[in-house]
């Protein structure tokens, strides 16, 4: 058996609380607040406390899915990205770039958010980009 | 068992500032008079104490939402 504690930053919002994952036998078993973290001082909100739940959730998607004939089918990343690119291009061609909007999330990193913004403005060509934490 | 739990709850409610709103009394099915007396006394006591302050909070919370 094996029991270790892995520090991490909560991915839910921009606050950046320090969390500690309790890992037993290689599986995340619980989330703890990091007592010595300068941001949260050993406190968490309900989302942070339940970080481990979604990691282990049976409902979590592990591969991309593409809807065919009204049902989701498992697909590879290449297929999914290709499919999305085709569809985006179709919309852009038919209705113009402003018909597309992008909503980004606090659950991804700053760098990824930057990329998303860049993608929206430079690739799609619209300013329709927003972030959930702006609410 | 009951007496323990109720006694604990009474003390706890006192700490919360809800003193005297919980009462326990043993009344057998043959003690109709006692039952009436206890219920009347307690109703009167609660009436004097005024409405449950928690209801106010409930209303305030609902109003806020």
């Amino acid at each position, binding site marked *: *058996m094996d029991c270790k504690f892995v520090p991490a930053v909560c991915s839910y919002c921009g606050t950046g609380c320090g969390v500690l994952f309790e890992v037993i036998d290689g599986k995340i078993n619980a989330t703890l*607040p990091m007592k010595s973290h300068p941001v949260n001082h050993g406190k968490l909100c309900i989302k942070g406390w339940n970080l481990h739940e979604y990691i282990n959730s049976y409902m979590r998607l592990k591969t991309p899915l593409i809807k065919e004939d009204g049902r989701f089918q498992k697909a590879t990343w290449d297929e999914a990205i290709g499919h999305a690119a085709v569809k985006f291009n179709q919309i852009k061609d038919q209705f113009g770039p402003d018909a597309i909007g992008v909503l980004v999330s606090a659950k991804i990193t700053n760098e990824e958010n930057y990329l998303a913004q860049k993608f929206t403005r430079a690739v799609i060509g619209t300013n329709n980009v927003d972030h959930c934490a702006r609410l | 068992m009951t007496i323990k739990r109720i006694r604990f709850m009474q003390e*706890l409610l006192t700490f919360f500032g809800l003193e005297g709103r919980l009462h326990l009394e043993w009344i057998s099915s043959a003690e109709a008079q006692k039952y009436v007396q206890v219920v009347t006394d307690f109703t009167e006591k609660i009436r*004097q104490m005024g409405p449950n302050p928690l209801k106010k909070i409930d209303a305030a919370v609902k109003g806020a939402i």
Partner: protein
Amino acid sequence: MNLIDQVEQLFIQDKIDIFLGYKALDGHLLPHGFTRDRMEELKALQVSEGRYSLEKIATHLTEKHPDIRIGMIARECNLRTLNLLYTWKQLNPENIETINISCCPSPLKPHSDCSYLEPKQTGAYKKTHGIDFNADPDTFLDDFNNKNRFSRWMYEFNKCIKCYGCRNICPVCFCDECSLEHASLVEPGTLPVDVPIFHLIRATHMAGRCIDCGLCEDACPMDIPLRLLYRQVNAIVSDIFDYRPGNGTDQSPFTIIGEKTVLEPKPMDAQLEGEKEYGL
């Protein structure tokens, strides 16, 4: 013998399978499970000021491996927790080895008085509207009348953001199904939380269980004086039943049928003078 040698001995004598202690990582002292496979790690074993609930980790381990033998660093509060978990059959005392350490710098203090938790600063606004962290249950009862106690607690409870941190961190909360998540008792999806039902439920469930480690108050992001509340819970249980959770492995008075303590129902008092009006 120093701590590391002691743990090494336990491994050598084959008394434990895992030892729960602390290890520094990037300047943070974090809990860690030391095992025989990686004895070299033992050199990094430390005692931490920041307290994590090692017992809770032990129960998690026991859940996965029922026969695992666990060693751990134990302060006074940890020992009380362990006693309580033995009482409630969540850990088997035969499978637990403790290395007792004192809460530096002072030697062990008496029950419910941990040096790491005091004094705590209370802001001016909170002092006028809410409850001082460092209040004593008795002085709190004396200082305020029924009405004031009520409004002060309501002020505190209304802040609750329902993070469940108090329950999650609690070393003696082990239920698989928690009443606080029971939709019929605590309405899901609303804030503020059902006041004061949420905290009353937790307070009653703490009766005969709370070992007063103070972790809940520590974990509360809204600064609700939970420790004061559970100290009063403990005081009531101690007054009525002469029972102090974690001081031994006696059964909780709430699970003993028949009267260990002879109690009479409380008589109905006269109405409380001059307290007809309650304010929020």
